[in-house]
């Protein structure tokens, strides 16, 4: 079965209850053609395991990396991705859209 937003958040709760460090990433804004709608979640643990998606695969790697920092420090971060980004060659959105992703630790 394909995981839905609710399964992803249920997993976040279960992971945290099991004592794992967990971060929740949420798409909070999109411009133009964006692969995943506002409200989509990616849940990440301290080991870099993740569930869900914020972009259908384009920028998950970068979000997981940032999530590691968020889990370590506890300070939430707002990330922005788009083709205009200088790192576009690495983590841009090929569809031409732009997205803003909020990453916070689950405490």
């Amino acid at each position, binding site marked *: *079965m*394909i995981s*839905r937003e*609710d399964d992803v*958040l*249920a997993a*976040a*709760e279960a992971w*945290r209850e099991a004592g794992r460090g967990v971060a*929740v990433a*949420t798409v*909070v*804004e999109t411009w133009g053609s964006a692969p995943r*709608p*506002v*409200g989509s979640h990616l849940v990440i643990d301290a080991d870099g395991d993740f569930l869900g998606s914020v972009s259908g695969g384009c920028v998950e790697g970068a979000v997981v990396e940032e999530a590691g920092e968020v889990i370590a420090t506890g300070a*939430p971060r*707002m990330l922005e991705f788009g083709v205009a980004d200088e790192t576009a060659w690495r983590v841009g959105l090929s569809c031409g859209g732009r997205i803003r992703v*909020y990453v*916070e*630790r*689950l*405490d």
Partner: protein
Amino acid sequence: MRLDVLKAMNAARRERRAGVMVTRFDDGSQRFVEASGFAADPLGERLDQALRMGKSGALALDGVEYFLTVQAPPPRLVLIGAVHISQALAPMARIAGLDPTVIDPRTAFATPERFPDTPVVAEWPDEALATAPPDRYTAICLLTHDPKIDDPALVLALRADCFYIGALGSKKTHAKRIERMRALGFDDEALARIHAPIGLDIGAVSPAEIAVSIIGEVVASLRRKPLRTEGRAP
């Protein structure tokens, strides 16, 4: 994200209660407000709006940026009739993000072997639906061709404000169905909510193709307009 807030939201979802999680970006504060508590919340009106649209989103108000995470119950798909079309429809529904249930009092049809991974209830629809009443996040498909089984479900669906009601059968069959429902006191507006013949007109022939046409119609009803509001008179 606060674990207690997430727990409250996950618990509401499990019990099919709607609500909105409010996150303030400036101080990171968070709360989950159930629909029943909107009236008492300072952002109540905005939360109600977001829930009606069924869309999470950012909100800027008086110089403060918020994010609203909408928690609406997962749409349910109730299939009346453990028939061939239902066998194709149930797995398609799951892939599309709907929660299917099959109801059929005929025990020869309603067997787990015919419906792996789908809850099957071998009871009359009015009994089966009494324990899990349809709500505005429920779609109901009448697929038995048998008024004895379909009609009790249809009566409940019409009273319950389901976002989709579809009925299998020819125009002639449907005309008779409309007559029976009118005799029970349902008016034209209520009866116009029934999609019949069921499914989008894609020239479907096989049971699986008909299932595709039904799934398409259910998704259209779910997404094209906001869900029907609660509180329709029975």
